[in-house]
């Protein structure tokens, strides 16, 4: 999209406007709920959905969900407005708007859902829609790859998450979230608590790109900037944080919870802010600061203190506001100059004043300068950190370091491009159209407004949120710019000092980090090798199993048969066998031997005619068996069929080459014998116990009186079991038609 702003700023007509209006309407609707929530009430609606599984379409509006809803719909509105110009005249804008709106709705559903499964439905929907958005410029290999990466990582987490939810539902006997929370600390004592926690965190950490799953998020920036602004700052990545917050009352307070969240949060925060400083691409830098924010939020959720909770609520809002606006600003810079590389940018302040102001406001909030909300947020952070029962120094240190780095990054992103250096030659930047600076300005100034009038937030959102997090109102700490001379204040000052130092030396620092990060394994590279490994393994396995050779398929099948039977035999033990040879006549024996001889001849011969003749012998032998054991009809049929078989083979062989000499294969021989032996064995066992002849007796009794036939076999065929016979002649017809088609298929259709 580089190379100047769209000339036609009227956007995309209705397809552009409608989504904006829709989002705005949603925002208004949620705003209208603020009074209720501020009055520390909640709104819950539920419609039965899958009663047989106890799943409801249940939605809950409380402080937490309302805060999120307002952020989502509010920022959504501005982003959609922004996009309408950013992507003005784009042939696929309709799809873009559709996906973005769909995403917004799913996100709202996610934060409002009061049913675990319903929540998961929306969770996956956000994954799906974000996949479509990340891959929006789908003709570029890179964006396809990154879309898949994001989908795969979050999808993997999602599946663990699903398992966790199912266990959670099973453990607490309900899928209703408020229901679970109402059960108080029951869950924490439950035997399945740990597995549930691990699975849920697996889901949330992947979704919120916590270390070590962070690698997908920067790549997801392949998406158009508005998407990054929306998904990767304000909303989707916070879904994981949301779930942790949502489950906080029911699950927090255990050591596992405390330590996992604290440590991983802290590590993510520091690590991400270092990464952020290392970036030269503005968007990437912002992406990593988002990680840092998420880490911090996770860090807070590890605790239970009112400070931590208040800090969480505040910082949640703060971050969304400034981060979204900064992303949009970067979008403006990008469009205006055609680049996002810090060292190719400068002196934009005079050319794009409004954008510059927006950037400045946002950055100051981000850096945590008074009187911005960011400052309050930071103060609370420190307060919270100190309030942390365990290891305050560790937490405080982490917070300090990350905040300082944030300040530096803020400078790099929002100060340097505007107020340092001059516009490089070849760039002809212009001020962004109003649709594009409106968003940043509004969001950024909100940061200031709330900073100056924190009570607005306090009552409307912070307190209710803290209630949702802790359960008691009392926990909520007051937001104020001036909290007196206290440790947080000192820490703030330290932050400013350190941060400015970092900013001043950020180039050297970056070089240093570059060297440092060479040593750290790059999970993004790991991703590719993982995929290749997967493909390689799949190929290997498939060539092993599905090698295209019929002989090995048959071998496998027969092996399964033999192994199946014989191993089962080992398991069950020998069935009852009674061998009775008393009634065997020499006639029977010789017929049996003749048949066997025929089979063996067919087995050994390399001459086709000998083979056919051998089959003929087997046929004759079996016919003799049918004759001796009084089955004339069967014998006749057998002989007729045998004759036809010979005829057909004789005809076909006219065109077939002679058989090659077969070389002896021991493994085949062993397998064959095994199969044959097992069949014999089973049959012997079967005939060892007497046969129940109810059916036959009935046929003999009714064949003549009721079916008017003296040939019982024929009566069975055409009357008792006529349906079999019908199916059977159907088989014959189909066989003939199929074979006919196969023979004629090379001709021009079928002619007489």
């Amino acid at each position, binding site marked *: 999209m580089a190379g100047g702003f769209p000339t036609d700023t009227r956007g995309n007509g209705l397809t552009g406007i409608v989504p904006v209006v829709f989002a705005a309407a949603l925002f208004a609707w949620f705003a209208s709920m603020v009074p209720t929530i501020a009055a520390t009430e909640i709104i819950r609606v539920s419609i039965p959905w899958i009663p047989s599984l106890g799943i409801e379409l249940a939605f809950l509006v409380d402080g937490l969900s309302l805060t999120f809803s307002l952020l989502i719909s509010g920022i959504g509105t501005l982003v959609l407005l922004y996009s309408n110009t950013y992507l003005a005249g784009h042939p696929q804008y309709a799809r873009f708007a559709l996906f973005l709106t769909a995403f917004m709705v799913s996100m709202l559903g996610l934060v409002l859902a009061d049913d675990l499964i319903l929540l998961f439905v929306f969770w996956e929907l956000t994954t799906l829609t974000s996949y479509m958005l990340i891959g929006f410029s789908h003709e570029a290999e890179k964006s396809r790859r990154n879309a898949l990466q994001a989908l795969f990582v979050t999808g993997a987490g999602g599946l663990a998450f699903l398992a966790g939810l199912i266990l959670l539902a099973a453990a607490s006997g309900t899928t209703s979230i408020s229901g679970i929370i109402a059960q108080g600390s029951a869950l924490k004592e439950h035997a399945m608590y740990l597995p549930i926690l691990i699975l849920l965190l697996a889901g949330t950490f992947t979704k919120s790109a916590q270390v070590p799953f962070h690698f997908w998020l920067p790549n997801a920036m392949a998406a158009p900037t508005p998407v990054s602004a929306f998904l990767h700052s304000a909303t989707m990545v916070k879904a994981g944080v949301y779930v942790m917050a949502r489950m906080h009352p029911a699950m927090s307070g255990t050591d596992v919870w405390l330590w996992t969240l604290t440590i991983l949060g802290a590590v993510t925060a520091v690590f991400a802010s270092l990464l952020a400083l290392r970036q030269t691409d503005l968007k990437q830098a912002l992406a990593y600061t988002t990680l840092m924010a998420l880490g911090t939020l996770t860090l807070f959720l590890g605790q239970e203190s009112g400070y931590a909770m208040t800090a969480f609520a505040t910082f949640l809002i703060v971050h969304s506001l400034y981060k979204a606006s900064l992303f949009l600003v970067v979008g403006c810079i990008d469009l205006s100059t055609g680049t996002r590389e810090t060292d190719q940018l400068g002196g934009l302040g005079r050319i794009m004043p409004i954008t510059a102001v927006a950037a400045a406001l946002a950055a100051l909030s981000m850096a945590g300068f008074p009187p911005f909300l960011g400052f309050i947020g930071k103060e609370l952070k420190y307060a919270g950190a100190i309030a942390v029962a365990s290891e305050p120094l560790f937490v405080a240190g982490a917070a300090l370091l990350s905040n300082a780095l944030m300040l530096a990054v803020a400078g790099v992103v929002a100060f340097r491009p505007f107020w340092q250096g001059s516009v490089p030659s070849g760039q002809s930047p212009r001020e962004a159209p109003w649709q594009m600076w409106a968003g940043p300005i509004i969001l950024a100034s909100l940061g200031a407004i709330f900073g100056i009038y924190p009570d607005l937030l306090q009552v409307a959102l912070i307190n209710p949120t803290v209630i949702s997090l802790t359960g008691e109102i009392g926990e909520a700490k007051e937001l104020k710019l001036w909290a007196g001379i206290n440790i947080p204040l000192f820490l703030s000052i330290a932050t400013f000092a350190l941060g400015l130092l970092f900013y001043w030396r950020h180039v050297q620092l970056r070089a240093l980090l570059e060297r440092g990060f060479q040593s750290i394994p790059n999970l993004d590279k790991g991703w590719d090798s993982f995929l290749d490994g997967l493909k390689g393994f799949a190929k290997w396995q498939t060539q092993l199993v599905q090698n295209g050779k019929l002989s090995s398929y048959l071998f496998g099948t027969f092996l399964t048969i033999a192994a199946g039977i014989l191993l089962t035999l080992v398991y069950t033990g020998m069935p009852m066998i009674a061998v009775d040879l008393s009634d065997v006549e020499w006639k029977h024996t010789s017929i049996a031997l003749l048949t066997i001889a025929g089979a063996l001849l067919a087995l050994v011969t390399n001459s086709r005619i000998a083979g056919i003749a051998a089959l003929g012998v087997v046929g004759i032998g079996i016919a003799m068996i049918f004759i001796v*054991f009084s089955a004339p009809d069967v014998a006749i049929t057998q002989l007729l069929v045998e004759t036809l078989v010979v005829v057909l083979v004789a005809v076909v062989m006219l065109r077939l080459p002679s058989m090659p000499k077969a070389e002896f294969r021991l493994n*085949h021989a062993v*397998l064959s014998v095994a199969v044959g032996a097992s069949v014999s064995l089973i049959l012997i066992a079967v005939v060892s116990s007497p046969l129940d002849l109810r059916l036959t007796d009935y046929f003999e009794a009714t064949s003549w009186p009721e079916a008017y036939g003296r040939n019982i076999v024929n009566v069975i065929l055409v009357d008792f079991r006529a349906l079999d016979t019908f199916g059977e002649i159907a088989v014959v017809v189909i066989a003939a038609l199929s074979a006919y088609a196969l023979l004629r298929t090379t001709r021009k259709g079928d002619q007489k």
Partner: protein
Amino acid sequence: MEFLFAITIGVLVASAVYLMLSNHLLRFIFGLVLISNAANLTIFVSGRLTDGAPPLIPEGADAPLVDVANALPQALVLTAIVIGFGLFAFAIVLVFRAWTTLNSLTPDDMRLAEPEEAPK
């Protein structure tokens, strides 16, 4: 009696399996004929064997006077034989087509549907 033919069936099956495993379609066909004969015989033997008393009702009688052979398996075998013939007929034609179109009777050389190396 049944024992004797159970053994016979075993041999039929064994030879059939060996033939089917040999990587040659004509041998496979031979094996197919053998093994379907074996299957039919299995049903017949499972229904127990009766010497020289076909399941026919003599004129004037309402039911067989002596105890005759078990008619049901005979009917089943008859059905199975005919079905088996249908399958065989198709199979042999398929083998013929395989020879005329793929010019080979050794299925392991037939690699059109599943080429040697899957296309990248």
